[in-house]
């Protein structure tokens, strides 16, 4: 797990082009809202002292109310809130689709050819796996739905006790527990479907239900390794993001330069989120390939220098892969599934032993 974690961090850190690509996509999706706010402030506060106040201080609440009452007739905080919610929903859906598209490219890049990034390879991966990953996304909704249903049941039980409570303390602890349960369930499902995607790319499978079941089986069989790795990366990512977000918030944005610095920090924080996402994929890919040995026929010779942290890196087989799919491949995997000695190896030697 630790080796995979380190492999993930190192390789993701070298993938700055991919981080940049993801960041640009993220910025493009966020731009409409940012531009709307920019234009609103320019149109309503420019040429008044409100603009000075808003640069010198926190948000001028008086200005917000004035804008609602006089610049946006017919709007209220509530109606804008609803519209903002709708905008977020549409943007969020679009971004989800794009992330589903990108997931194929990311895994494709890291899974083959030593993880070298080329636009062609990336987009080829995006195109190749998009519809399969959409199916995985739809399947994942079932599991997320079940998890949410379990959460609602637990929440309902807590609410029943809440209605009779005369103290909040006991209620809030139960609520936290239920919320933690939801987070853990969502995180686990999220991780499982990462492995489902990885498995799909590695085996070029088209049977998404089967990949889902395999991924669940894999995640449960190696629960501590897989979930431990997931949590470790999540904690590291959240910590870095939190640090940068805190630094950003501590800047007194009262001049153009300080505003610029805050923008740089905020984009650095978002870039850290991208980096975290890549780290998930690389580390999980690495762990997957450590724990699930490949069929002997698809093993390619590898350079010793490149396998120090990247046991998952390999060359995509072209014709041979097709030949060993199906039952034959399954037979090849079955006798050697999760041999302990494979787990402990730090490089590709184990694969050669198969």
């Amino acid at each position, binding site marked *: 797990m630790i080796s995979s974690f380190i492999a993930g961090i190192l390789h993701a850190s070298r993938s700055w082009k991919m981080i940049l690509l993801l960041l640009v996509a*993220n910025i493009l999706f*966020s*731009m409409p*809202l940012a531009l709307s*706010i*920019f*234009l609103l*402030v*320019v149109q*309503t*506060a*420019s*040429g*008044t*002292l*409100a*603009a000075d106040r*808003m*640069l010198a201080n*926190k*948000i*001028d*609440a*008086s*200005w917000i*109310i*004035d*804008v609602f*009452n*006089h610049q946006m007739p017919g709007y*209220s*905080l509530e109606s804008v809130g609803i519209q903002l919610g709708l905008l977020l929903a549409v*943007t*969020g859906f679009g*971004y*989800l*689709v*794009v*992330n589903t598209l*990108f997931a194929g490219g990311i895994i494709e890049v890291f899974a083959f050819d030593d993880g070298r990034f080329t636009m062609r390879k990336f987009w080829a991966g995006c195109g190749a796996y998009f519809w399969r990953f959409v199916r995985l*996304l739809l399947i994942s909704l079932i599991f997320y739905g079940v998890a949410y249903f379990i959460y609602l049941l637990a929440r309902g039980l807590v609410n029943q006790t*809440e209605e009779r409570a*005369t*103290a*909040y303390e006991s*209620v*809030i602890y139960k*609520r936290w527990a239920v*919320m933690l349960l939801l987070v853990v369930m969502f995180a686990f499902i999220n991780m499982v479907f990462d492995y489902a995607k990885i498995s799909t790319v590695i085996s070029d499978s088209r049977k998404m239900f089967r990949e889902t079941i395999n991924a669940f089986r894999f995640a449960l069989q190696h629960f501590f390794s897989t979930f431990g790795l997931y949590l470790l990366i999540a904690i590291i990512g959240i910590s870095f993001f939190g640090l940068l*977000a805190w630094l950003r918030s501590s800047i007194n944005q009262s*001049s*153009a330069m300080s*505003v610029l610095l*805050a*923008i740089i920090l*905020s984009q650095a*924080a*978002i870039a850290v*989120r991208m980096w975290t*996402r890549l780290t998930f994929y690389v580390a999980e890919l690495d762990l997957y390939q450590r724990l699930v040995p490949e069929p002997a026929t698809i093993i390619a010779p590898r350079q010793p220098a490149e396998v120090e942290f990247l046991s998952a890196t390999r060359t995509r087989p072209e014709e041979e892969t097709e030949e060993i799919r199906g039952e034959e491949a399954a037979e090849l995997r079955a006798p050697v599934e999760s041999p302990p000695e494979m787990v402990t190896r730090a490089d590709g030697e184990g694969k050669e032993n198969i």
Partner: protein
Amino acid sequence: MKMVVVLCLRTLVLFFICLLGFNKFIRNASADNPPRPVASYKIDVKLKLDAKQHPTDLEGRQQLTWLNNSPDTITDLQFHLYLNAFKNEESTFMKESGGQLRGDRNQSGEWGWIDVNEMKIAGAEDLTSKIEFIHPDDDNADDQTVIRVPLATPIKPGEKITLEIKFSARLPRVFARTGYWGQFALVAQWFPKIGVWESAGERRRSSAGWNCHQFHAMSEFYADFGNYEVSINVPAIYKGKIGATGKMESESVNGQDGTVNYKFRQDNVHDFAWTIDPNYIVVTRPFKADDQIKPAEIDQWARRLGLPQSQIKLEDVSVTLLIQPEHRSQIDRHFFAAFNAIKYFGLWYGRYPYATLTIVDPPYNAEGAGGMEYPTFFTAGTTWWAGRDQNPEEVIVHEYGHQYWQGMVATNEFEESWLDEGFNTYSTAKVLKLAYGANVFPFRFAGIPWFYLPVEIPHPYEDRIFTLQGKFNDPILTPTWKFYDETSAALNSYPRTGLVMNTLERYLGEDLMARVMREYHQKWRYRHPASQDFFDTVNAVTRQDFAWFFDQFVRGTNTLDYEIAEVKSERAETAEGIFDKDGQKTEIKADRRLDSGQSYESEVVIRRVGEAYFPYELLLRFQDGNKIFAKPVALREGIIEYQFEDTRTGRKWNDSWAIKERWKKFEFTTPSELKVAQLDPEEKILLDSNLTNNSKTTSGSGLAAATRWASGAMFWLQTILQIVGGFG
């Protein structure tokens, strides 16, 4: 020698008479000499638990001594039976509220009610059979919150009558200001309470009569002052876990059944409430006036109000806090807020005259009992994980403030709620501003304040924000049950009045406003003022007629909004054309104009956008740092007269603006370019519905500000998108 002594004595007497006359606006007898008690109660009440051990049932006997303090002969009596508001869905209260108030909903099957089992004049007539329900405010025959009792023998002016009343009551599940929850109970509006007899002229009434309104959803209470002596019998589990109006005189355990008897007493109050909860942590701390208030503060307020220091000094108060165990970490915060409130209200309006103050923290799920005031006793309420925001401080200061505007100055909250709630909103913001500064606004999730929003709302701007979110469907001066809806009632009674009072303060100046408020409070302490009494006080203390202000903003609904419509500042140039100079014609061509030195021609157009008018100040700032300040110096016969002053040269000149005209153009020639024109530069006029259009600059794009806030919003959207994208 004798003559000299007599002259000296006469001079001395004259001097003191003059002194008294000088202070007549500020000093009066009411503060330390309360009027004769009108409605005094001796009540014995026993609280019983129901089958589920909930404290629901009351059995009471009360002796009411009522004084006819009017010149009228009275032939009937009227009483409030407030608990019947919770009897069923047909009561006026339930119909108006729809069964919910301040976010709390009544619980079906957990009704409250009160029955008068017996009512007789002590040693004389039995009135029980004569009791009838009346509905003075509406035609709701099902409402049972007011009863009328005709008397065989009228009560003459100055006569007292003593009534013996037996009653039974059931508390509702806590919903609106009263009731039980679990083993907690707030026992309020719980006994038959006599209405207020108002003679002609009192509170500007045209004819004499009872003021005894039904219990309405949005209104609170109104009663006469008296002395209360209340004995409460509670089950053993409540031993030491009780709080009430006034001072606890005795506690004794009943040997037979283990119940505990308490006796509370308080003079010169108009209501009595009490509470029990076996979970309470009871903490009592003294407010020691000498420790809490520095001599310099007393001196400052004595000078500000023109009063001797002896009248400013406060007295010690024993403050008891009954707090839930899960809020124990907030005990100090509660006391700090209460002590600040006692201090500032006392310094500003007059000393708190009672020996005790009780603060109640209702339990979870009994929030309907929170934030309510009774004499010497109020309920607050807080969150489990209190953040840096002013919660629970705001509610503590606010509820304490009601001791002044509802408890001592006994406003009729049914008819003129603004005199209590609005004055208190204004006073609360002042205390909070002094004691804590601007409020912060937490983002809460799962009960935890995670971070604070980057929004700055200094007191009292929160009133402006709340007010401007609503529409002015009603004037502030509207009986509470006649407001368009609950929102209109709340906005007008609380924040809009707060804005009116703050605008008045900023217009008059803090010192003059302090005198107005002190005078009003002292004059009407232990009495029942009407709105006009406040208007009269303002006019008397300021020696101005503020009818234009109150007519527009208390009696009216017009919107106030002025704007800087246009600002221009251009280098002055010699005009083009042919000019006679030294007997010769000289032509100035367009391409050969001559600069007229360093002068700029500037013009500022101010427009009255709303229907209401106000004498605004105007400030012009120039490139070279010079300023021109325009101050309205008179408002008469529909004309606002302005005096302009150039702060560098000291030059002064006058101009005027007819109120009925929508716009006014001011023109100036100055040595420097005009940079900023600003109406109301100190933001005195918080009633202005659009402060953003009160300024205009000749430069400044606002790009930096726009970039700052747009990039901030973008960052958080990016973060949210990343979370969503993680599922893909």
